[in-house]
C-alpha cells in the first residue's frame, strides 16, 4: 500500500530532477564523481542514503525492485530499504535477480549476469579512492583532473611490500573507460570483473559525501595492478555448503563455539535458485 502522505518514492520532484541531472552527467563522464545536493533521508548515514536517493530518482511505478545487502535479500538493511520503497512508491519487489529491473545493492554484485533491462545502484560510503593517501579534496580533484594516478599505484605497492601480495580484497580500485580511477564501493574484488563490459547501467550514490558516479553499459573497467603482480579475483577456496556452487562468492559462517564453520553463497537468491533446481 502506498502511503499517500509522501510523494512517489519519498523525494519531491525537484530533488529527483536535481539527482537525475547529476546521474546523466555521471553517465556522460564515466567514473567521474559528480557533486549533488544530497538530502537528509529517514535513515542514518552509512545505511545507504546515497543509494536510496539514486534509487528514488530512477524508480518508475512499473519497476520491480530488488534490494540486497552483502548479497542477501533478508538482512536488516535490505529489508528496511525494500519496505521503504514499498511504502513510499508502491512498486513491486522481488528477490529474483533475473526478474528485477532495478537492484539496489550494498557491497555485492549479484552472481546472475545482469542484462540491458536492469539498473544496478550501489551504496557508497567513501567515493574517493585516494582518500586515505591524500586527505586534501582539492588535491585529489586535481589528480583526477590531470589523470595523475601514480599515488593509486603507491597504495598497491604498499600492499605488496607489507603482505607479499595485493592484499586489498574489497573496494579494489578500477580504471573506467581508460580515464578515471574509481572506487567500486566496498564490493569484494571477486566482483570487479563483473563490472567490465556489463550490459546494465551501474550507478553509485554516496549520500554523506554528496557524490554520484556511474559506469554506462558496455564500458571497459580494469582493475589496477602491477605487471609482476597481476590482479586476481579471489574467493574462499571451498564450495557452497548448501547448493554446492564452486563459482560464487562465499560467506564464512561460524556455526558453534568449537571452531565449527561453513561456507555458503553470499548471494542468497543465487543459492536458493540452485538448491531449488537441485543442482
Amino acid at each position, binding site marked *: 500500500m502506498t502511503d499517500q502522505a509522501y510523494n512517489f518514492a519519498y523525494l519531491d520532484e525537484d530533488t529527483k530532477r536535481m539527482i537525475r541531472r547529476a546521474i546523466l552527467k555521471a553517465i556522460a563522464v564515466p567514473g567521474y564523481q559528480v557533486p549533488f545536493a544530497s538530502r537528509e533521508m529517514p535513515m542514518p548515514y552509512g545505511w545507504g542514503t546515497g543509494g536510496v536517493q539514486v534509487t528514488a530518482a530512477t524508480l518508475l511505478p512499473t519497476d520491480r525492485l530488488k534490494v540486497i545487502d552483502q548479497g542477501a535479500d533478508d538482512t536488516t538493511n535490505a529489508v528496511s530499504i525494500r519496505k521503504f520503497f514499498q511504502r513510499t512508491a508502491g512498486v513491486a519487489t522481488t528477490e529474483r535477480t533475473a526478474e528485477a529491473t532495478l537492484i539496489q545493492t550494498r557491497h555485492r554484485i549479484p552472481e546472475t549476469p545482469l542484462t540491458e533491462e536492469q539498473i544496478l545502484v550501489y551504496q557508497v560510503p567513501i567515493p574517493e579512492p585516494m582518500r586515505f*593517501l591524500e586527505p586534501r579534496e582539492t588535491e585529489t580533484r586535481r589528480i583526477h583532473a*590531470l589523470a*595523475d*594516478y*601514480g*599515488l593509486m*599505484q*603507491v597504495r598497491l*605497492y*604498499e600492499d*605488496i*611490500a*607489507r603482505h607479499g601480495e595485493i592484499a586489498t580484497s574489497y573496494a579494489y580500485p578500477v580504471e573506467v573507460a581508460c580515464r578515471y580511477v574509481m572506487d567500486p564501493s566496498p564490493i569484494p574484488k571477486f566482483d570487479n570483473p563483473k563490472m567490465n563490459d556489463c550490459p546494465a547501467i551501474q550507478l553509485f550514490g554516496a549520500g554523506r559525501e554528496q557524490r554520484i558516479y556511474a559506469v554506462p553499459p558496455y564500458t571497459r573497467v580494469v582493475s589496477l*595492478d*602491477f*605487471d*609482476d*603482480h597481476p590482479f586476481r579475483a579471489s574467493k574462499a577456496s571451498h564450495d557452497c555448503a548448501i547448493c554446492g556452487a564452486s563459482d560464487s562468492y562465499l560467506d564464512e559462517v561460524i556455526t558453534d563455539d568449537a571452531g565449527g564453520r561453513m561456507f555458503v553463497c553470499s548471494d542468497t537468491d543465487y543459492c536458493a535458485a540452485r538448491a531449488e533446481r537441485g543442482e
Partner: protein
Amino acid sequence: MMAMLAEAGPGISGEEEGPISSSSKYPGPDAPLLRVRQITKRYGARIGCADVSFDLWPGEVMGIVGESGSGKSTLLGCLSGQLRPDQGEVVFRTRTGPVDTVRMSEPDRRLLARTDWAFVHQNPRDGLRMGVSAGGNVGERLMATGARHYGRIRGSAGEWLERVEIDRGRIDDRPSQFSGGMQQRLQIARNLVSGPKLAFMDEPTGGLDVSVQARLLDLLRGLVRDMGLSAVLVTHDLAVVRLLADRLMVMKDGHVIETGLTDQVLDDPQHGYTQLLVSSVLQV
C-alpha cells in the same frame, strides 16, 4: 626589451646573452639549463621578490642567501612552479628544447616536476608521505611516470636507499620511524630517483645537528658531482653555501643586492649588507 622577449616566447634567446644562446633557436649542450628573467612576485602592495634575473648552467649550484623575509623562498617557489610570478620568465631547457615554465600548462609542469626537477623541502614531512613506507616514497615518482613492475620499482628504491646511506633492510619502514637526518636523506632519494637535471633545495640542512648536517652536505656534494646535477640552493647558513654553491646571490628586501662566485662574495663582500651578513657568522 622585456615585452619583446615575451612576444618572442620560449625557445628564442635574447640578444644580450652573447654568441652562445643567440646563435640558434635550440641551443646546444653548453647553453644555460635555466634562464631566469625579471621575476617579480608581489603580495598585495608588498614585494616578495623583484626583478630577479640569472642563468644557471648544467652542473652548477647557485646559492641564494639572505635573512628571513628577504624573498628567498618566494623566489624559489616562483622558479619551481609552486608560485605564479606576476612578471618574468623561467626558461628551462627540457629534453626537447627550452620552455618557459611560467606559461606552460599545469600537466606539463607537474610532469616536469617529477622527472627533470627535484624539490627538497626544509622539513622532510612536507616532502615525504609519512604514512607510506620508505620504498613506496622512493618508488612514487617511478610509478607516477608509468612504471608498473613491482620488482623493478623495489629494486631501484633499494638502490637509492643505499646511495643515500640508508640500510636496504629499512625499505618497508615508515619515515616516521626514521631520525631527522634519515628522513632528509630519504627525501633526497625520493627526489633523485627519476634522474633529475635540476634540484631546488630549501634549507636542506635546517633543523639538523651539525654532525648530521656535515654528512648530509657530504652526500649532497657527492650526488651533485656524480649526477651532474644543477641546483638552486636557498639557505641562511653561509657555511652550507661555502661547501656546496659555485655561485652566490645575496638577497635583501626582495632584491638581489650582490652576485658572484661564492668565495669571492664571502671573502670580499662589496655591499654593506653582505659585509654585515658575513661578519655576523659566529666563529667557534
